[in-house]
């Protein structure tokens, strides 16, 4: 299927690669379908591009590439909504925010470890999960 995006123009994606969010990413309740697009060859980053709003995209990264010991208990309600039957079906991605660096320094990148996006890779279901704020930072700077 063809999707329209502000950033990438028209992109062709496989229909069965569409991620269906069982709940919108917090703050974006009406965007429920996304596609995961690689940033560049060999880049650790992906774009989580909304199929419902052409101008909405998030940069995401596999958290294990930036934090060595990121692990969390998936709340039971999320496990059920994502129809997860086996732990291997679950993949986590974290959303990256860029803030301008001072004095011409490169942008500061931070990852939201408090609200990871969890995907059931077999079923293409996804959801942002809220974890314990005492354990996980919302802005984990990693560059």
């Amino acid at each position: 299927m063809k999707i329209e995006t502000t950033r990438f123009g028209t992109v062709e994606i496989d229909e069965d690669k569409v991620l269906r969010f069982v709940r919108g990413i917090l703050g974006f309740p009406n965007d429920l379908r996304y596609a995961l697009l690689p940033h560049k060859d060999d880049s650790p980053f992906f774009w989580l591009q909304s199929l419902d709003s052409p101008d909405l995209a998030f940069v995401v990264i596999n958290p294990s590439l930036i934090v060595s010991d990121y692990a969390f208990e998936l709340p039971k309600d999320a496990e059920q909504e994502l129809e997860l039957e086996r732990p291997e079906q679950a993949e986590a991605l974290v959303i990256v925010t860029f803030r301008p660096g001072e004095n011409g320094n490169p942008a500061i990148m931070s990852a939201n470890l408090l609200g990871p996006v969890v995907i059931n890779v077999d079923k293409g279901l996804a959801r942002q999960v809220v974890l314990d704020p005492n354990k996980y930072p919302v802005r984990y700077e990693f560059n």
Partner: protein
Amino acid sequence: MLIFTRKVGQKIRIGDDIEITVLDIRKGSVKIGIEAPKGLFIHREEVYRRIIQENLSAAKSVLNSQEQFDDTKINIKKSQSAQVGKQSSGSQ
């Protein structure tokens, strides 16, 4: 807004499925227990707001920006993929 006065141990019921109990009151803090159906989003308001705010910042930070972020300078950790545990016992 509905306003109730409750004592420790007393409850408030919302609809058929939601029960809120005042567990303890001490030094200006109230400890509250919530029984609600699975799948209902229950979080501290400030946590919820913080994540919404960060999501909005994240979306805005890449919107229309032409910056080619430099992904060659990141210290990539060499470890297995993130572990997502299953929670055996239920509620929050």
